[in-house]
């Protein structure tokens, strides 16, 4: 479960950011490095819902808790459980 989620989220992020840096450096800050913007955030939430069956409401999205690939995986796992 964890491995699968890990891979799914990283694949989604790779597609959204257009770089495999998210895989090689999963603690990179996506917003500070301007790899993600608000449009990408919405896409991420939609993909999480469609591919991982994880529901996140937009007002529940706190940038500070979702800023790196690792943090995003953690959040997704928390909600899938």
């Amino acid at each position, binding site marked *: 479960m964890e491995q699968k989620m890990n891979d799914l989220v990283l694949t989604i992020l790779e597609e959204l950011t257009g770089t495999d840096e998210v895989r090689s450096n999963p603690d990179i800050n996506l917003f500070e490095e301007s790899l993600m913007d608000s449009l990408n955030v919405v896409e991420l*939430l*939609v993909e999480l819902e469609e591919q991982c069956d994880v529901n996140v*409401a937009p007002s529940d999205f706190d940038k500070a808790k979702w800023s790196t690939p690792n943090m995003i995986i953690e959040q997704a796992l928390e909600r899938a459980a």
Partner: protein
Amino acid sequence: MIFLSPYERPLYFVIFAVAILPLVIALARGRRLQWYQSLVTLFFLYMTFGGANYKQGIAFLAYIAFQTLLCGIYAHYRKEHNANFIFYICVALSILPLIVSKILPSLAITGGNSIIGFLGISYLTFKAAQMIIELRDGLIKEYKPLRFIQFLIFFPTISAGPIDRYRRFEEDLIHPPSKEHYTKLVQKGIHEIFLGFLYNYILGHYLSQFLLPLATDLGGKYGHQFLGSLSYMYVYSLFLFFDFAGYSKFAVGFSYLMGYETPINFNKPFLSKNIKEFWNRWHMSLSFWFRDFVYMRLMMTLLHKKVFKSRVTASNVAYFALFLLMGIWHGGTWYYVAYGFYHALLICLNDAWLRFKKKHKKQIPSNKATKILATICTIHIVCFGFLIFSGYFDRFL
């Protein structure tokens, strides 16, 4: 009995300082005097909505009762069911009082005065509607009517925000700040209130009473049309900022002293390097509300249902929805709508430019000079927006 609008006169602050003393003493010991806070709240609301304003007071009470009941009914319903149309009906009902109160006067049915309107109804609507939305999303699992009422009637932010979020407010309500943290809050709160005096009472007052008429005369009496308009634009923009930012500082300062960390509304907006950044710095609690509850939700629906082929189109449509709504929210005049349209257009262009820049990172220079240039351009684009917002162009029609 003295009746005062929030932050209207220095006297309001003196009364506040005396009234909250027991609260401050309790908070300094790490406790919240809930019953006393309610008493102070009722007293301050009576000061605003009593006396000659009693009609507003009745409308206010009816509004609170209505919203509390509506959320209660929806929360009860949501426990077992989750139909789309019930959700939409409840959201519509929760904003209905605002719509009616704005439309009635313009139809002149009630002689210009809305019978169901009251000071702050526009801001309260954001608090009420988010409750329905977050109940739907399952973010608020248990509906506590008394807490919701306290959230709605929290008097420091009642008339003009900042617009708080229920879950954030509830956290503060249940968990008073630690003694150490409260000491910091008091310092910050007093600092905010005094900055508010500088912004609102001194600079805002000076700009509106002295400089604004001067700029008007320059264009009117002395016939320097362009120069007059230009200086009116600068002065009005500064006035809008200092007046409103000062007001927000009062509200934030009062909240801090009461042990609530109401979000800030302004973060050096005139230093923004583009329009997107501007909206992250100007009237933040409003733009974040629209971002979370209009733009992002609409985007998710559009992307889920694949309404548009391109994500960019979907985003642009959502931006137009957001800013046109924001424009209309300010009032039903053509220049508020135009203001919304102007900013929707700007943010779509801004996004297109950011995409272009991302693709051509190497060819486009980015250094101190370009950043300064970007800031100056943004200031002027923003100020021109405020000129539209001010209704300045109404006289030319």
